[in-house]
């Protein structure tokens, strides 16, 4: 029966061609349409191909029009632009160093030694890659007397990457003129100066547009947006909103192009005789330099991913550049501070104990366990302070890490194992570490015993079963300065087992005995290596709530040489849930795997 209505919902080639054949079946002039060799069939091929081609194209165009379905970076950035969202650029890592300058002879008093802007440094990362560093400011020092030949410049901030300057001469007659920055530019290092003309060197510094309500016709601002291929485009005011540029003005753009996340962590091994950084350029009048790391490189991050833009652009629009709710703080920090791997925020009224008028922010950095003081200051002063509502004080607290010690006895069939025992054991350890990195390490991530047990079973085909026990570990970092006293209140949020608490050994300030913590019937004691009680009742343990209180104590030396005392206690809970601001994690040093041969199938 003839088809009176041409179906148009099918978009693939074969369905379109079938629909056309159905349509042609209603006429009698040409009946060979169904034979593959006929001329009419070849015409149907062309028509169907063209229709399929157009429908595919239209489908892709429609996909790119919406944030949820767009896949091209330029489409995503363009849609985010409508929401007033500028994707976060790559960020170069920064380190703070002290520069010890040495002269051949003692310089005269009041001689000024200057480390100029753009001074170059070099360092090698943990990946054995050589990284360039540069200074974005000039630093000076004046020797205090005419005797010393070595004198320091402190607080020198090094930015990883190459400092680059690009100039554009404005031509207002050229309507297509664009001022672009290449990808991987760290926008936070961008300075924009406008020179009057190539013959008039007077310059004015322009700042990035932030708030339209404060703009006037003379506001020295520039607009920033991401365009195609991850490039950033700079534009200027039109004479109504922002100062308009004139033909002949010279735009001077200075910025750093870094390598992103790879350069984090340089300087952690910096010691006298083996310095991490070296100065590549010379300082006038200086014979040698030593670069001493004050804080190692942090903050390096890659440019924002497509998924991140899709997630944060609508939320950024919802917050309207204001931090009102606790979730606003989270969105703000994750958007503006790319070094944040996980963020947790809660109001002071939810804190234990409550502190009204505060918002608590806890941030896990991309590398390491806690933020540096410089990072915390940047977040509170530069990111949160300009956007917070009055009377609310944002307070950054370090995440409260609860480490989970994993001990596993793994039965495996050595007759079917394809690898030696050591390799199977390494696979098990990898599986545990992989579970930690994918399922833990975030705020509110719950430790699931069955999941880690299943991951161990699946790590090698020869594994028959495993018996895995998880223990809770806290790291107590005392001030080993003899004048300071420490006390701790530890909340594990899980019932713990009586008599299972053990700790690393340490020495108290007022004693020579090497002791450790041990619990009995809810009372915490200090015992020596023979379990002889040295000091009774130095704290309490609430086994039901999992709360441990350690009374004030002076600790002078930690036997292990670490900066922390490891406190380990067993729990009878299968799954472990963190409290607000807590993170559960597994350190590779806390994993113990024992292999047990089991030849039964």
């Amino acid at each position: 029966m003839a088809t009176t209505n041409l179906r148009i919902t099918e978009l693939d080639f074969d369905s379109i061609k079938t629909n056309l054949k159905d349509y042609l079946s209603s006429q009698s002039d040409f009946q060979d349409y169904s034979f593959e060799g006929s001329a009419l069939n070849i015409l149907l091929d062309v028509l169907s191909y063209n229709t399929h081609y157009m429908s595919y194209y239209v489908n892709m165009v429609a996909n790119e029009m919406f944030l949820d379905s767009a896949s091209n970076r330029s489409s995503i950035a363009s849609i985010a632009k409508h929401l007033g969202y500028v994707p976060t650029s790559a960020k170069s890592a920064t380190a703070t160093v002290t520069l010890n300058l040495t002269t051949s002879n003692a310089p005269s008093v009041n001689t000024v030694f200057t480390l100029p802007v753009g001074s170059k440094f070099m360092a090698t990362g943990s990946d054995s890659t050589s990284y360039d560093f540069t200074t974005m400011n000039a630093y000076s020092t004046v020797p205090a007397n005419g005797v010393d030949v070595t004198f320091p410049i402190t607080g020198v901030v090094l930015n990883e990457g190459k400092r680059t300057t690009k100039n554009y001469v404005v031509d207002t007659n050229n309507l297509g003129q664009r001022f672009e920055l290449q990808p991987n530019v760290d926008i936070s290092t961008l300075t924009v100066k406008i020179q009057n003309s190539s013959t008039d060197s007077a310059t004015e510094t322009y700042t990035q547009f932030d708030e339209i309500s404060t703009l006037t016709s003379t506001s020295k601002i520039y607009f920033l947006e991401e365009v195609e291929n991850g490039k950033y485009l700079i534009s200027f005011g039109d004479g109504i909103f922002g100062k308009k540029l004139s033909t002949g003005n010279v735009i001077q753009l200075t910025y750093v192009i870094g390598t992103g996340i790879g350069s984090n962590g340089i300087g952690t091994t910096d010691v006298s005789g083996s310095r991490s950084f070296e100065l590549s350029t010379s300082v006038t009048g200086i014979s040698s330099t030593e670069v001493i790391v004050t804080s190692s490189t942090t903050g390096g991050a890659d440019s924002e991913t497509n998924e991140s833009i899709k997630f944060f652009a609508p939320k950024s629009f919802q917050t309207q550049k204001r931090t009102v709710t606790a979730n606003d703080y989270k969105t703000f920090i994750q958007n503006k501070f790319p070094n944040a791997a996980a963020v947790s925020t809660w109001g002071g009224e939810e804190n234990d104990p409550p502190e009204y008028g505060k918002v608590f922010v806890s941030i896990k950095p991309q590398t390491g366990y806690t933020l540096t003081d410089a990072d915390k200051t940047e977040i509170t002063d530069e990111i949160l302070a300009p956007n917070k509502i009055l009377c609310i004080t944002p307070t950054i607290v370090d995440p409260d890490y609860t480490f989970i010690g994993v001990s596993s006895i793994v039965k495996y069939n050595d007759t079917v194992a394809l690898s030696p025992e050591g390799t199977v054991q390494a696979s098990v350890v990898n599986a545990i570490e992989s579970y930690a990195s994918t399922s833990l390490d975030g705020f509110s991530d719950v430790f699931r015993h069955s999941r880690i047990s299943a991951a161990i079973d699946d790590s090698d085909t020869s594994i028959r079963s495993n018996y895995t026990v998880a223990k809770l570990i806290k790291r107590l970092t005392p001030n080993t300065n003899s004048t300071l006293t420490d006390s701790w209140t530890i909340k594990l949020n899980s019932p713990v087992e009586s008599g299972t608490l053990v700790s690393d050994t340490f020495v108290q300030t007022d004693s020579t005995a090497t002791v450790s913590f041990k619990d009995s019937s809810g009372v915490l004691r200090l015992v020596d290596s023979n379990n002889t009680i040295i000091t009774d009742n130095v704290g309490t343990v609430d086994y039901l709530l999992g709360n441990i209180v350690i009374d004030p104590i002076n600790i002078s030396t930690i036997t292990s040489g670490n900066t922390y005392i490891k406190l380990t206690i067993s729990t009878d809970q299968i799954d472990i849930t963190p409290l607000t601001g807590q993170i559960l994690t597994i350190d590779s040093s806390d994993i113990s795997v024992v292999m047990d041969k089991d030849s039964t199938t």
Partner: protein
Amino acid sequence: MLIQTRKYNDLDINFSKNLVTKDVGTKSYQDSVKQSIKTLVMLNRYDKPFHPEIHCSVRSYLFELASPITATVISQAIQDCINAYEPRVRLNTVDVVALDDLNTYQVILVYTILNDPNPVNTQELEFLLERIR
């Protein structure tokens, strides 16, 4: 007995002009089938969008050594293609002869059109395959 046949008619693939009606030219009956067979023989792989399996690909054999073996392979390829994609005919013979001096294969197909009211009528299609580039 009344034998009902299906009417085969198709566009002329050369898009010739009908001198009387000024309309596009058509092919009917045996001519339509013949045009279809010729088109199928000339089809290369991927000529049909999304259907690379519909092809005869005699072109690919024209760089082979001109020999009876190649002629046999071409003959088999033509038979496979016609049998699979031209249901209107039953092939009787496919003769492929290598004309060495002319660098050409002569192809002679003899077939019967199914549904033909007079089935004893066989059709013959003859053409030359020559590599021109």
